């Protein structure tokens, strides 16, 4: 026998078999019931109002949860009751955490909400129970026994005083009891997400109760003072092993600084931050965790770890979190294709795209991931620091005063700078525009030679580009183009077969697609197929905090992506040399 369920406010109607769990019926109708506690009837977030139809009796403990949430007698938990006959119900908005969106730019990707750490308020154990106090807590939480650090039990009596009082259990990943706190603190559970980039560090403070990103901060990675790129940092450590600790401290103190700013402006205490998600390239994650990097120095560039189990704040050396906070590290894929990529792939929902699709992260090391059918392949390509303006005579990072865009205005170029400040230098995106415009005007040949005999392209007073600058850009563009071309060829695809091209990274987000296509950096496909992800690595770190499917997805991606070694491919040199010319793909 089936029953009709009408769901308000949308008025959606669905017919389900009798005895179907109400939460299953909602899910079937396309709603996302808030199964924060995974249907154990503990969290109260799936409460619905029964408008018509039989009102079932409360399940055990249900009334207390609904009362505590201030819900009337007509509410029931969708995870505790089955559909018995036709009914009409309403989903209150506050009871629907819904689906989180983590990508800042472009079409949003929805991931099911299931945070890394959850809080549950329960009544302290009654004296009459003959179970141990801990087992009684597990019983109330509706879980199998959790891992409990001894420290939690030592402080037990300071928290669990008299029976009937509310206490809050802080549960990580459904397996660990992180803390027990007096009173109901369920609204106060936060996480910090970090993108540990070679040049820039970014962080976000996340409310793990609502899934909202509260604020973001970024700063320069203090390790840049010791060396601009990952290889030079490995080199420093190889020369003098003690420097590993120097580099580690440099990045950890910057992360602490970001955390401090975020927490103090939001009025959140360190002890309320129970989880961190960290995404960084392979070398950054190794250095930050104090792991050896020597094997990453020479071919075949092996990392010590790919996936790590969840760490605690104290063992990972992050003193600005709750000491038992759960630290999730985005898994490294292979050699230089690191956690920033696995995080970005998850945040962009790349693995679920129909494809063929391409994911590109343009940096000193360019990561390229191709999806064809159900398979994923990844390659890294040594683009060098031109996109970051580092090996360009008048180059600089995209900071105040950097020429970041250029347009033709008659015979002259008009420049836009970061913060509209007076021009101090040129960043990667500005370089792309200037060179594309110069190519159009015949100031540069497709082969890259500057036409003027003195081989200088003047920009504004005091700033110019020289021949070597153009050559550096050619090498960077050529490296990316070679990577994409060889990946496509190996998978019997042409560039026009690509249905979607996801571009990660701050550089990518400020890039002119038209000019990148003109230079041959990006394939010549309709601009609607490009999707700009912004800091996908940070979005991915946020996703690790908020979604169990993101955590599992990152692991699975890292495990199943096929590594495609460009340099090992026959014909690499020919493709590279033929990719150095500035010309579009068609």
């Amino acid at each position, binding site marked *: 026998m089936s029953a009709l369920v009408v769901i308000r406010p949308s008025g959606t109607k669905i017919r389900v078999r009798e005895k179907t769990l109400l939460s299953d019926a909602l899910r079937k109708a396309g709603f996302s019931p808030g199964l924060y506690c995974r249907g154990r009837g503990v969290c109260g977030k799936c409460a619905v109002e029964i408008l018509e139809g039989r009102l079932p009796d409360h399940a055990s403990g249900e009334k207390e949860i609904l009362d505590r949430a201030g819900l009337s007698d007509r509410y029931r938990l969708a995870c505790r009751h089955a559909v018995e006959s036709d009914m009409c119900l309403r989903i209150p908005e506050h009871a629907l955490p819904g689906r989180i969106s983590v990508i800042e730019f472009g079409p949003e990707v929805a991931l099911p909400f299931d945070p890394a750490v959850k809080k549950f308020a329960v009544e302290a154990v009654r004296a009459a129970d003959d179970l141990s106090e801990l087992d009684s807590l597990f019983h109330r939480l509706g879980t199998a026994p959790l891992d409990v650090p001894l420290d939690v039990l030592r402080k037990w009596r300071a928290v669990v005083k008299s029976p009937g009082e509310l206490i809050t259990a802080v549960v990580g990943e459904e397996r660990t009891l992180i803390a027990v706190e007096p009173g109901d603190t369920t609204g106060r559970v936060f996480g910090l997400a970090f993108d540990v980039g070679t040049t820039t560090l970014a962080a976000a403070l996340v409310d793990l109760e609502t899934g909202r990103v509260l604020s973001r901060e970024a700063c320069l990675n203090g390790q840049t003072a010791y060396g601009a790129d990952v290889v030079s940092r490995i080199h420093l450590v190889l020369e003098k092993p003690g420097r590993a600790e120097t580099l580690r401290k440099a990045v950890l103190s910057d992360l602490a600084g970001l955390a401090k700013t975020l927490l103090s402006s939001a009025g959140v205490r360190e002890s309320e931050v129970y989880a961190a998600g960290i995404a960084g390239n392979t070398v950054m994650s190794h250095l930050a965790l104090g792991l050896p990097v020597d094997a990453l120095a020479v071919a075949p560039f092996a990392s010590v770890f790919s996936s790590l189990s969840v760490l605690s704040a104290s063992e990972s050396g992050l003193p600005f979190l709750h000491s038992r906070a759960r630290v999730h590290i985005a898994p490294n894929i292979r050699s230089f294709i690191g956690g920033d990529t696995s995080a970005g792939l998850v945040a962009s929902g790349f693995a679920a795209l129909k494809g063929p699709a391409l994911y590109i992260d343009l940096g000193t090391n360019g990561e390229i991931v191709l999806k064809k059918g159900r398979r994923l392949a990844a390659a890294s390509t040594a683009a060098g620091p031109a996109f970051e303006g580092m090996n360009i005579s008048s180059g600089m990072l995209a900071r105040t005063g950097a020429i970041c865009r250029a347009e033709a205005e008659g015979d002259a170029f008009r420049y836009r700078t970061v913060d509209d400040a007076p021009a101090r230098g040129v960043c990667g995106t500005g370089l792309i525009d200037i060179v594309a415009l110069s190519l159009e005007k015949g100031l540069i040949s497709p082969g890259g030679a500057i036409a003027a005999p003195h081989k200088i392209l003047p920009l504004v007073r005091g700033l110019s580009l020289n021949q070597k600058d153009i050559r550096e850009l050619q090498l960077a563009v050529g490296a990316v183009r070679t990577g994409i071309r060889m990946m496509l060829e190996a998978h019997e695809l042409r560039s026009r077969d690509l249905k979607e091209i996801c571009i990660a990274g701050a550089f990518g987000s400020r890039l002119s697609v038209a000019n990148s296509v003109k230079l041959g950096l990006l394939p010549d496909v309709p601009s609607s197929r490009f999707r700009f992800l912004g800091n996908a690595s940070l979005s991915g770190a946020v996703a690790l905090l908020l979604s169990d499917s993101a955590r599992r997805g990152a692991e699975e991606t890292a495990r199943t992506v096929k590594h495609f070694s460009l*340099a090992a491919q026959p014909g690499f040199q020919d493709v590279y040399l033929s990719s150095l010319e500035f010309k579009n793909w068609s």
Partner: protein
Amino acid sequence: MERDELLSKMTDAVINGLASEAQTLARRGISLGLEPTDIIDRGFVPGIRRAGELWETGDYFLPELVSSAEAMKAAMAVLQPELEKSGARKENRSRPRVVIGTVEGDIHDIGKNLVAALLAANGFEVHDLGANVNPERFLDKALEVGADFIGLSALLTTTMLGQRRFLEKLSEEGHRGRFKILVGGAPVTGQWASDIGADGYAENAVAAVSLCRKLMGERT
């Protein structure tokens, strides 16, 4: 066709990187009875020299330079047997010999390939060992062919250390004086070359050819 016009066409074929045309012109030169040494010295060599100059002025980049080297190589494939036939074998023997490779732990070899191609185009006998070459292989090959030069390439600051290791090995085994050791690659500098006691460093393939020429001059 006028002899001079033919020679200047040969020069142009190399400058413009036209391999099959260079080969056709080389054959025509032989069939017209020109001396192989004349064809090389007055037809093709000026072309590869000019390509080098264009690189130095910034007009040429890697693709143009490689095409020129390949055109030169194509022409030499025709001319080499003729040289030997015409009794220039002795001269052939005296071509300077270079053993070249990318050091152990490094798989990047485009730059090294370019140096090898340009040296070959300029008349050096080049033995290219490829990438990820350990010190033993460098030394064995150099001893086997009686190399004048050993070229060690490294693209990473981390693998650059392999250049120093090779020099240490040479000294330990008492072979240091036998070869001129040249180092190159993106992170390598003249300072590094002198720090580790190498005989020379060149910033790019064109400079590498000049360097080898200069060092050959010192030898004789």
